[in-house]
């Protein structure tokens, strides 16, 4: 019984492996052949029958599970309650879908951004638009611009901070994949590395355990969290992400989707006729009393 092949054999096999590897195609430097976007079509060319849909006659919209307040309500995207649910139905309406023609599917972060076929027409889940991300997916026109906010406990020494500078020595936490996390590393630049959590629920738990001094989230989420989730929680202040563009949420579509211009046209129309503003007032508590952190 032989456990190992003899030395000579191993060498030959290794050589064979090396040869096989050499046959693999060389890696290019990942250019993304960015095709020029067609100009946003007018809504007139975007009625249900002309749209390239996943399923004829229905609009399939995805979001994550659980779907958090204030973007959705009761973890049920199909009830039209919560800002993003309302926006999705407004977009569907602009494209000529009845409320019953909208189906919701659940899709986690990685499912949404993987290459290849998707199981939705568009996804709405507070995805921030960025140039990097546009290499992998399509975004519609922005439907919401979010400020960032710092949440801490009433008992925290950081409660009275007036500037981002004062938060340098705080232990900060944020959710993975959010602009909040980028705001920490690029704007606040804390002395200890930020802690990263799967979702806001875990970040909140860490805050209550005093494992972090403060968490960073977009303002509407911060409002909701301090109002409903965090005992003794308070918003220290808000600030605008200054690196790159202002943070804007867009609907996410498959890279190169034929639907993108139409969805963008619908969002633009909602912005022009004041619907987006109306929905914001209805579902998102507007920041009036939250101080700006310089």
């Amino acid at each position: 019984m032989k456990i190992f092949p003899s030395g000579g054999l191993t060498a030959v096999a290794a050589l064979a492996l090396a040869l096989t590897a050499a046959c693999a195609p060389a890696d290019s430097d990942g250019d993304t052949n960015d095709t020029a976007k067609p100009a946003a079509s007018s809504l007139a060319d975007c009625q249900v029958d002309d749209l390239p849909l996943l399923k004829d006659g229905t609009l399939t919209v995805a979001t994550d599970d659980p779907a958090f307040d204030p973007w959705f309500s009761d973890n049920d995207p199909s009830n039209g309650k919560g800002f993003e649910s309302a926006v999705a139905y407004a977009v569907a309406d602009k494209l000529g879908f009845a409320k019953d023609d909208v189906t919701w599917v659940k899709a986690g972060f990685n499912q949404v951004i993987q290459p290849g076929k998707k199981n939705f027409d568009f996804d709405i889940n507070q995805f921030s638009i960025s140039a990097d991300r546009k290499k992998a997916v399509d975004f519609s026109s922005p439907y919401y611009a979010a400020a960032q906010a710092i949440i801490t406990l009433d008992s925290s020494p950081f409660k009275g901070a007036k500037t981002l500078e004062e938060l340098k020595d705080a232990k900060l936490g944020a959710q993975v994949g959010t602009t909040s996390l980028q705001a920490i590393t690029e704007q606040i630049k804390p002395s200890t590395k930020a802690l990263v959590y799967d979702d806001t629920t875990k970040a909140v738990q860490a805050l209550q355990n005093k494992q972090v001094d403060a968490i960073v989230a977009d303002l509407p989420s911060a409002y909701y969290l301090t109002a409903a989730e965090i005992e003794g929680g308070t918003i220290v202040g808000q600030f605008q992400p200054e690196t790159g563009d202002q943070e804007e949420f867009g609907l996410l579509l498959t890279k190169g989707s034929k639907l993108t211009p139409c969805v963008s046209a619908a969002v633009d129309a909602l912005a022009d006729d004041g619907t987006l503003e109306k929905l914001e007032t209805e579902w998102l508590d507007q920041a009036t009393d939250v101080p700006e952190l310089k």
Partner: protein
Amino acid sequence: MTPSARQLEREQYRRRRTLRRGAVAAVSTIVVLGGLVLAVTSSPGWSNVRRTFFDVAQAKDSLPGIAESFWLNIRLFLVIEVLVLLLGVLIAIIRVVPAPALAPIKVLAVLYTDIFRGTPTLLVVLLVGFGLPALQLTGVPTSLFWLGVIALTLSYGAYVAEVIRAGIVSIHPTQWASGRALGLSYGVTMRRIVLPQAIRRVGPALLNDFVSLQKDTALLATIGLVEALRSAQVDQSRTFNFTPYVVAAVFFIAATIPLARITDYLTVRSLRRENGLVT
């Protein structure tokens, strides 16, 4: 002493056979692996996959951050490994010692192994990482590093305890009898005669658990520790490109390979020792 003609002929035959076998191995390796590579790279979605998972520029970008974070995985692993070994030996000995007075502790030990082997490791990590600090007890560490160490030590201690117990039970009773006949106490017999043989016998299984432990340090990301996998995820979520995951995977693989080779070596060595196998 010169080898006989027959011996020379034998050696020549063996050399030829080795060459022949090497050639067959090489050809079949090239055909099979080459075929696999070809099948993958000529698939319709390959260019997409290559851009998303194997983007060189992206890999270079995320490499320093992931490398730095991986050092945390290594530190975690080294600390946890030592603690797991100590805990495992302790629990195993409690379970095999034939002292009726220890019955309550034995019951606890059995409960511990049953519960922690049966609970998903991720669940233990979450419960310890978020639950322990929530108790607000004094003396409980709040440092995430140590909470992570506690969680994985509890989880893996149960596996390792069972492996070591199996090792102890497998040592032939005559070893015990010889020790006691020489006038050694139970404790000394266990420490000097049985345990060394037991550990040696379950070496490969132990190392197997350690390889697994080394990978599971990634689970500690869920309680906020930014280790290699989380670091990769942060990069991935910023650009929507999966390459950082592949980079992190390479780090984990590179760290496990030495362990795997040591396991192979020890297996062969013990076979050679115990069964007189010449390999």
